[in-house]
């Protein structure tokens, strides 16, 4: 008999597990993302050497590498369902909100894996000064949640359109810009000894606003 599975925690976890298993088997995004992070960091370190006294450049570089290495995969979690024609299956077994939350959790996990590899590599190759870990991790965590939430909801919207590739850049830019600006500013502040509170609050508020907007939006995404 039908169960109460729709819109439940079980559905969110099942979708998260499915995404992880699918990524593990196909390596759609992981290999490309790690390759981008490795090659860009190696290339920059060869070209400009150590940047330990330029924390402004270091902060921007860190977030640019994180953004571009993760973005191609983050934005494609919904597009893959549409292009593989599996969205109908997904819609039949889970509510739009459960699908959105499952995808968001996967994107967060994906970003975490990218960061676990990229951040130590970045600190080593760029000879970055030792970060103030609580502040650094706070900005990194809040920035990642905001980045994943923004990429997930924009990816969900553009997956329903025809010119998806071109549209993502245009639609994502205004949503991602505040995340990037606050994250770069917060990262620079923790290296220069300044307070990261304002940036951290901004990132958290932005992440919460994006999550709330996503939850309101998901139910209406696939009505037609």
């Amino acid at each position: 008999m039908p169960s109460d599975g729709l819109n439940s925690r079980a559905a969110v976890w099942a979708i998260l597990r499915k995404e992880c298993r699918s990524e593990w088997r196909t390596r759609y995004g992981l290999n490309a993302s790690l390759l981008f992070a490795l090659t860009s960091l190696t290339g920059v370190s060869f070209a400009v050497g150590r940047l330990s006294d330029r924390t402004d450049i270091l902060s921007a570089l860190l977030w640019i590498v994180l953004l571009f290495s993760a973005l191609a995969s983050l934005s494609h979690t919904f597009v893959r369902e549409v292009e593989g024609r599996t969205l109908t299956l997904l819609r039949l077994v889970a509510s739009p909100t459960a699908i959105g939350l499952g995808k968001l959790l996967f994107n967060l996990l994906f970003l975490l894996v990218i960061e676990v590899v990229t951040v130590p590599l970045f600190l080593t190759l760029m000879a970055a000064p030792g970060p103030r870990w609580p502040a650094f991790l706070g900005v990194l965590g809040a920035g990642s949640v905001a980045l994943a939430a923004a990429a997930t909801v924009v990816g969900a919207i553009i997956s329903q359109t025809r010119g998806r590739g071109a549209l993502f850049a245009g639609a994502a830019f205004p949503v991602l810009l505040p995340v990037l600006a606050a994250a770069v500013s917060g990262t620079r502040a923790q290296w220069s000894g300044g307070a990261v509170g304002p940036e951290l609050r901004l990132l958290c508020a932005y992440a919460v606003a994006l999550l709330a907007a996503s939850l309101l939006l998901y139910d209406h995404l696939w009505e037609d």
Partner: protein
Amino acid sequence: MSAVAVALEGKDVQHRYGARVGLRAVSFNLTAPGVVAIRGANGAGKSTLLRILAGLLRPSHGTTDFRVSGEAISPPSRPRWVGYAGPELAFYPEFSAAENLQFAAETRGLADPDASVRTALERVGLQSRASDQVAALSSGMLQRLALAFALLHDPPVLLLDEPGSHLDEEGKAGFEDLVARERGRRLVVIATNEEREWSLAERWIELQGRGLGDPA
């Protein structure tokens, strides 16, 4: 499972895809158990009507009322109560047949996903290919998998779009046996132009569109 009281009513249901008419106005009143066939020319809107009934598509005009034991079920909640199989239903090619069903069972929150998957695969004769990757299955086997997906959560309504397509003779006979078993337990709605599948039904809905999506 004993038959659950299901009533499915459509009033002046129509749908347009931009300038094209996807489904001309149709009204109906269906109750469980029983078998209903929807027929009409290609593009007359058989698949569109099934998608509307499944809650996957909102009609441009008209209403559908779906009741289970007297309680109205809103379109977003309908997938809990219907089993849907159709040409647009695709599975994850990197997973096996059983893994696709396991995912569906876990996402639906079924009490015993393993048993549900095993039973569904047995009912369509696909148990011997359960661990094969979907990418390696023939179109006939994919059709059986779609039927297993529809039966997985034991729903009171089955919405089957061209269920016999790609099936071999054994598969078609198996499908007919399945309909014969289910006709006293559920509402089975079949969209088809196959005479062999029409004859399984005791009620019919004739779609009046001119076919191939009427121009505006």
